[in-house]
Every structure is written in structure tokens, then in C-alpha cells.
């Protein structure tokens, strides 16, 4: 166990920090509510969460599709008809994929269980799988559900489930791995990226693990997992010093017995939730408990959120918001909705992170990698857009791009400015600035940073009108500081 947080230090700033890191932040009322629960109940309420799954039913198109039967039917058609049919399916797949992105982001925005969605986002970046190769929105949805369902439980169970997940099997070619010619892709990434980290296994281990994962397939008809015994290499393998007729699950068990596995996951989770380059003593401490608990991730999260280090100097306001965090926290802070798909996909692309479309199996590098000159400008412009100011240009993709150039989208409904800044507040510049700052930054206003805003307001008529209020908030959001959480 790590040195615990000093409960007497519990205040709104730390409640805000917890809400932003464990979840996606919130409006001032949400922070107040968490603060009011007190530290222990606050952490508990987040980790336990509320089950609001019925609020987010699966999309009606998210059904298995019997593609084998489709292909057989298509044999009856002429070549032209076949092409039309498959083009139609492809078009639908693309639409559904964009709808899926919006579905998940919407869930992150509105769920009463933000800790679970944030953890699902972590697992998605960890077991990174891209729709670009998988090309099957139902399977992407299925994987997302698996990560959500098992994410808080045992990491060992989660890993075994992911090994059988159809989208993962397509992404890392497990389904094509044959007895005589095993495909190494999954075995390598399992160890390098998912469990142990580079340098903690040998090339031989990869080859042997690949043999153990042969025979993994899924049914074309309904995308459920099946085990093809004939394709399974059931011979003896030597893996990490152990000898046996191992199958996939055995490999995972052996990996979980390595202390390095716990260290690797703990380190990644700490980096995601607290800060980069955690101290090795801290990692060892948490990793020992993680292994003892049977890799219980909920318990690990609880330990992280209850530690003093989580609220320390290295952690507070030290993290560059990911694009998803940026969008969801801004929407929650302003209490606005999200743009519809496909505009939303376009926005996420410009910011550099599209859920379900990680750039590679390594997921997203995060941290400073989120920030380039272009992505920073895009964040500034998106904030403007979210505030209800004007339009945003989204680049089109593919054929449409050549023909039409970028498209403009208008926000449907900006934030409720009366709610955010009632008239009485608008007549008091300093209080107004402090209030808006708190809403946007969830941090106390550093006097050094107040000057430009005060100067901006000094020429304006009081009480401040809507346009100037929006402009002021836009200025606040168009700063390097706003990128930190």
C-alpha cells in the first residue's frame, strides 16, 4: 500500500483533480457534488460506479452478420451486381463505424459511470485494435463491450478474453495462424505491448507462444469464437523456461506469474492516471499488491486514487489532455452536447485521436505527442466552436475531398450563457473571470494569468454581453495552460 492521502487536504481542487483523472471532469456542480461526498465515499462512488448500461443500448445495427452466407449468395449474382452489393455493404460499414465512434463518445459524455468509461478508453489504447484493418463495426463494438465488461475485473481474465476477441484476432492475424506455419503477430504484441514490455522475453518465446495460439478462429456466421482443433499445434512447447503442451490460456497464465507483468501494467496505469515515469519503488509497491489480488484492476484503481502521490506536485496539472479528454471535459464543463457523427469523427481526426482507429497496435503515445503546432491550433479552434462561435472546418476524406474541399459545420446549440454567467456576475469583472476560469480549468486562478483577461474586459461595456463573454472564454481556452489537466 502506498502512503495514503491526507484526508484533511480534501478540497474542491483535489476533488476536481480526481474527477478529471478518474473520469472526464465535469461542470462546477459535479465537482461540488463529489467534494461533498468526502474523500473516501468520493473515491468509492467513482470506482464502484453506477450501472447505467440501459441508457446506452447497443446500436440496432450492431448484429452479427453472416458474411459467409452473403458471399455464397453473391456467387449467384453477376459480377456487376456483386460489386454493387459489396460496395453497399462497405458504405454501410463506414457509416456504422462513424456512428459507433459517436456512440462511444456520447457515452463518455453522458454516463453516470465515468470511471468505467475512462478505464475502457485505457484498455482500448492498451489492447489497441483499429477498425481500419478490422473493417467490421459490429466486431469493434463487441470488443468495446468486452473491455467495458471485464475492465474492472481481473487483468488475467481480460487478457484471455481479448485473445479470443474476433476484432483482435483479425487485427493481429491470430485467425490466420496455422499449425504448420504459425503467425507471430499476436504472440509478439501480447508480450511486447500487452503484458511484459520489450526485453522481457526472447524471440524463441514468441515463436513458442505463436504455436500455442494456433487454432483460434471465429465463426464467419456469427463472429463467435471457436477453437479449430485440427489447426491447433498441440505439441510440447518451451515457454519462459516452462515445458508443456500449452494452449493460449496457459501462455497467459505463465505470463501473469511474472512479476514484470504486474509492474508493466501498473506503470502504464499510473502514467495514464497520475504522471509519467513513476518512481520504481511506487510501481513495485502497487505491483506486489496487484499480483496478490489476482490482478484486480478495480482494487488497483482504488489504491491509486487513495494514495498521497496521486494528489502530489508531480500529478496536479501535469498531464496534457488527450483529444478525447479535451473534447469530453470541455463538453461536460460547458454542459453542451457533442457534434453529430461524422462531423465528430472529423474533429477527432484533426485533434489526433479517433476512438476505434488507433494509429497502430501500440495505441496512442500520449503526453507531448498529442501536441504539434497544428493540433494545438485545432484545439484552440475547437474550443471556439464548442462555445457556439461560428463554424469549424473539417477536412473531407477520399473522393469528396478532391471535389469539394473542406466542409464547414455549425454548432447547433452553444452553452447556456445565462447559466454559466448570470447577469449579476457579468457586472463584476474579477469575479466573472474567476468563475469562468474555475469552470474551464478546474484550478484556482493564478494572478499572473488574470492580467490579460482583465485587460481584455477593461474596454468592454458592463454587464458583459454574450458575444464578449464567448470571446473571453475562447481566449481562456486558447492557451497552453488549458491543455493541461
Amino acid at each position, binding site marked *: 500500500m502506498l502512503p495514503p492521502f491526507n484526508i484533511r487536504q480534501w478540497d474542491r481542487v483535489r476533488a476536481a483533480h480526481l474527477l478529471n483523472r478518474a473520469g472526464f471532469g465535469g461542470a462546477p456542480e459535479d465537482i461540488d457534488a463529489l467534494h461533498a461526498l468526502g474523500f473516501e465515499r468520493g473515491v468509492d462512488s467513482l470506482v464502484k460506479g453506477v450501472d447505467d448500461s440501459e441508457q446506452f443500448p447497443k446500436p440496432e445495427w450492431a448484429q452479427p452478420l453472416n458474411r459467409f452466407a452473403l458471399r455464397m449468395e453473391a456467387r449467384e449474382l453477376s459480377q456487376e451486381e456483386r460489386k454493387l452489393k459489396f460496395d453497399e455493404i462497405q458504405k454501410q460499414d463506414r457509416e456504422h463505424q462513424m456512428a459507433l465512434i459517436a456512440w462511444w463518445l456520447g457515452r463518455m459524455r453522458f454516463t453516470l459511470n465515468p470511471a468505467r468509461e475512462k478505464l475502457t478508453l485505457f484498455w482500448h489504447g492498451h489492447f489497441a485494435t483499429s477498425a481500419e484493418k478490422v473493417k467490421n463495426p459490429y466486431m469493434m463494438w463487441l470488443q468495446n463491450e468486452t473491455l467495458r465488461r471485464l475492465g474492472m475485473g481481473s487483468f488475467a481474465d481480460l487478457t484471455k478474453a481479448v485473445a479470443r476477441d474476433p476484432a483482435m484476432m483479425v487485427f493481429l492475424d491470430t485467425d490466420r495462424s496455422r499449425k504448420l506455419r504459425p503467425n507471430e503477430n499476436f504472440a509478439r504484441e501480447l508480450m511486447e505491448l500487452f503484458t511484459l514490455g520489450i526485453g522481457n522475453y526472447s*524471440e524463441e518465446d514468441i515463436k513458442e507462444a505463436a504455436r500455442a495460439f494456433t487454432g483460434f478462429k471465429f465463426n464467419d456466421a456469427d463472429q463467435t469464437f471457436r477453437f479449430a482443433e485440427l489447426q491447433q499445434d498441440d505439441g510440447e512447447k518451451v515457454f519462459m523456461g516452462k515445458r508443456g503442451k500449452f494452449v493460449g490460456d496457459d501462455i497467459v497464465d505463465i505470463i501473469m506469474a511474472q512479476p514484470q507483468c504486474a509492474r508493466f501494467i501498473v506503470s502504464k496505469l499510473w502514467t495514464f492516471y497520475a504522471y509519467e515515469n513513476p518512481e520504481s519503488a511506487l510501481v513495485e509497491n502497487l505491483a506486489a499488491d496487484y499480483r496478490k489480488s489476482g490482478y484486480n484492476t478495480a482494487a488497483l484503481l482504488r489504491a491509486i486514487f487513495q494514495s498521497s502521490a496521486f494528489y502530489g506536485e508531480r500529478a496536479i496539472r501535469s498531464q496534457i489532455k488527450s483529444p478525447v479528454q479535451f473534447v469530453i471535459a470541455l463538453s461536460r464543463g460547458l454542459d453542451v452536447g457533442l457534434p453529430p457523427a461524422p462531423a465528430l469523427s472529423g474533429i477527432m481526426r484533426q485533434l489526433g485521436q479517433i476512438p476505434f482507429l488507433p*494509429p497502430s497496435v501500440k495505441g496512442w503515445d500520449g503526453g507531448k505527442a498529442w501536441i*504539434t*503546432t497544428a*493540433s494545438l491550433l485545432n484545439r484552440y479552434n475547437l474550443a471556439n466552436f464548442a462555445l457556439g462561435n*461560428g463554424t469549424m*472546418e473539417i477536412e473531407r476524406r477520399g473522393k469528396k475531398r478532391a471535389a469539394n474541399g473542406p466542409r464547414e459545420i455549425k454548432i447547433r446549440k452553444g452553452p447556456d450563457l445565462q447559466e454559466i454567467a448570470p447577469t449579476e456576475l457579468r457586472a463584476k469583472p474579477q469575479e466573472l473571470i474567476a468563475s469562468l476560469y474555475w469552470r474551464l480549468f478546474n484550478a484556482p486562478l493564478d494572478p499572473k494569468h488574470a492580467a490579460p483577461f482583465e485587460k481584455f474586459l477593461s474596454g468592454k461595456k458592463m454587464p458583459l454581453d454574450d458575444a464578449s463573454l464567448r*470571446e473571453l472564454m475562447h*481566449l481562456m481556452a486558447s492557451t497552453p495552460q488549458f491543455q493541461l489537466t
Partner: protein
Amino acid sequence: MDHDHIIEPHTRTLHTRRNFLRTSMLGAAATWTLPIFLERTFASLDAMAADSAIQTVTGKDGPILVVLQLAGGNDGLNTVIPYADDIYHRARPSLGIAPDRVLKINDHVGLNPKLAGFKSLYDEGHLALVQGVGYPNPNRSHFRSTEIWATASDAERNDPYGWIGKYFDSCCAGADPTVGVSIGGETPQAFSSPTPTGVSFSRPEQYRWVNSKKADADQAFRELNQPDDAMMDGLGGQANEGGSIGAIGGSIRSELSPLDFLQRTALDAQLSSDKILEISKKFQPAVPYPRGRLADSLSLVGRMIAGGLPTRVYYVSQGGYDTHSNQGGTHDRLMTELNDAVSAFCADLKAQGAFDRVMLMTFSEFGRRVVQNGSGGTDHGAAAPLFLLGGGIKAGVHGAHPRLDKLDAGDLIYNTDFRSVYASILEQWIKAPSDKILGRKFPTLPILG
């Protein structure tokens, strides 16, 4: 296509950080009431050497390097094909390319059939291929191997900065932020340096801060996006910036904190966006480009070159090369895209009269295994060829083709260290001291004509 429009000198000098900071708060006015922290900063800047208006190293007419990353591990054996070697055909019963389809370079190797444009460039005298490129103790992880190529470090070490970042750091201190331009999403690791250098964008028309265009909002914006004091002291650059290529900055500066990093990026974004926007409005591609992301990226590079952006290194990338299964169709498509995009780019440069100034280098983090796997694809390998092209290149074949009968755990053994290629480019093309940038001397290849 407006090559007669030259960017006026005064706008060019505006885009050094010092000039920007002097003038941004003021517009054209000479009377200033500066916030105190900026005043103090100008004092410290003045204490350093005087401005050099034109950075000789990154001048408008200097040589340009375009780095084209083939991400995923390009199958070198099917790119530069040892068509005369029986082992090749036996190892790849379905993936092997028949000798009569290969675009022959000599009696031993030829190019993939989809690389007709590359073959023309070779015949013209403007393309060189380097065979068997790799490094000792090859790593077969995408991420680690890419990192090794990006940092030019030995496989056992963990150097933090990119080889191009180190070049920027030692030879381009104080240069325009657009000294390095990467087209696309993330900053490539090859650019990483103690202070972030280089800009990234994919759509120049959107590369700007959108606001109401009221002067006071603009001014407040600039003020909010100035770096603070401590950051400012590090910004000015070295005393002998620009001209003296041999002098290295000296101490390694510490990694910036997230906030400092953000502030520096914000400043560079402002400095570069006007220029890039301006160019993107005035210059369109000189030739038609095919469709596709790579072509889009190269076409953008072409426009920036036409517009006189003082960039020394451009970075573009093409993904999708990790062909573990069903390689045939995918690799064909990738080769076609590569060929068509690069050929259009060369034609563009020739039409602009810039072909002699530009060198393009392709690289991939590793090649692939000799024997095809059970899924109609290939797994991660080691040594592979790379291409160098441009008006200044001397056509030819460097390095020997790795032997197919002597492998390292199924993989080709390298005979040309990739850092030799980097050293050759640094010394001969960019005229920078390769041993200081790469950490030691590597034997070079005679790449220039």
C-alpha cells in the same frame, strides 16, 4: 501557378522568434508599453548576439531533404528483387515475383513491377538504391526499431533525441520554426530535440487561430501564448547561430516541462501559420498528383518548396507495410501508391526547377523474413534496401545484396549500417558534421553525382 510572386524580404525576417516578439505586441508602432516580463526578456535577448536576418543554414535556396518513412516494415525482398537467385523463388512460392515481371537493374536485382517510375528515375540517373541496410543486433519490434532509426542510436542504447532533431539542435539554433516540417498528425521521433523544433500540419488552410478578428482579442491571444520568463531565456539561440556550422551548442538542455513544451509549440504555431497560409493560397501543385494520402503529403511539400518556405527537412510517411498476411495485393497497392506519388513529386520539382535542390530518402524500420509464412504474408525481418532520389543523386547500386543462403534466424544480414546513409546525407548534402550529430564517424557512400 505563381512562381513570380516572391515572398517579400520583410515578411521573411518577421518570422524569427525575436522579431516576432518585438513586433507582435506593437503592430507597426514604435512606442511600446510592454508588460514587464517581456521587457526583461528583451534585455536578455539583446545581451546575446545580434539578430542574423537570414539563417544561412536554412536559407531559401539551400538543399532540402525529404524523409519518406514506410511504416510497418516494407518487404525489401519484393521491392528490390534478387530475381536471379533460386532461393528467393523457392522461399516464396506464391509471393515471389517472376523474373519476367521484374524491372531489371542489373543481372542480379530488379525493381518491383509497380515501380516503373523509380526505374525511369534510375535510368535517367537520379535514383540510387542502397542494399542490405540495417544495424547490428537488429530489433524486430516496430516501435523499438523505428526508434533506433529515428535516434540513430545503437540497438542497446536509449538515446532520447532524433537524428534530425540533433541536426537542428547543433546547426540550426535560432532558425525559423519551419526549418523542419512534418506533414500529418504526430511529430516524428526523428525530429525530437531538447527544445521542440519543427512544425506539423496536414491542411494548411486550417493552420490558423480562428477568432472574431477583433484587434483586442488578437492581442490578448498573442499575450496569452507568449512563453514565460524562464522559457524565454532558452529561446534566443546560440551566439554564433546560423553561419558557423561547426560550432555545437554545448550542453544538452533539459527536457521541457509539459507547460514549457506547450508554450514553445504555441509560439511556433503563431510564427509559422501566417507564412504557411500565405503559401498555400498562392501556390498550387505544378503537376497533377494521384489520389491518396502520400500523394497529398508530397503535393503539400511541393507547394511549400515552391512558396519558398525556408525548410531544410520535410518528413512524410506512408503506412500499411506490416504485411503479415495476404501480402500480395496489399504490397502491390503500396508499391503503386509509392511509385505514383513519388513520381508526381519529382515531376513537380522538375517543373518548378527545384529538382536539383531536393533529395528524397525512403526508409523502413526493417525488412521481412525470407520465407513466406502460412498466411500468405511475411513476418518481421531485418536488413532491407532503401532509395535515394533527386537531381543531385548519382544513380547506382550501393552495398551488396544480402545473401539468401546465409541468414540470421531466417533474416537477411545487413552490410550497410543505416547511419552510413545518414552520415553521407549529412556530410555531402546538408553539409553538417555527421560525427557530432550521430555520435561517431560512420563510413560514407558516394551518393552525389
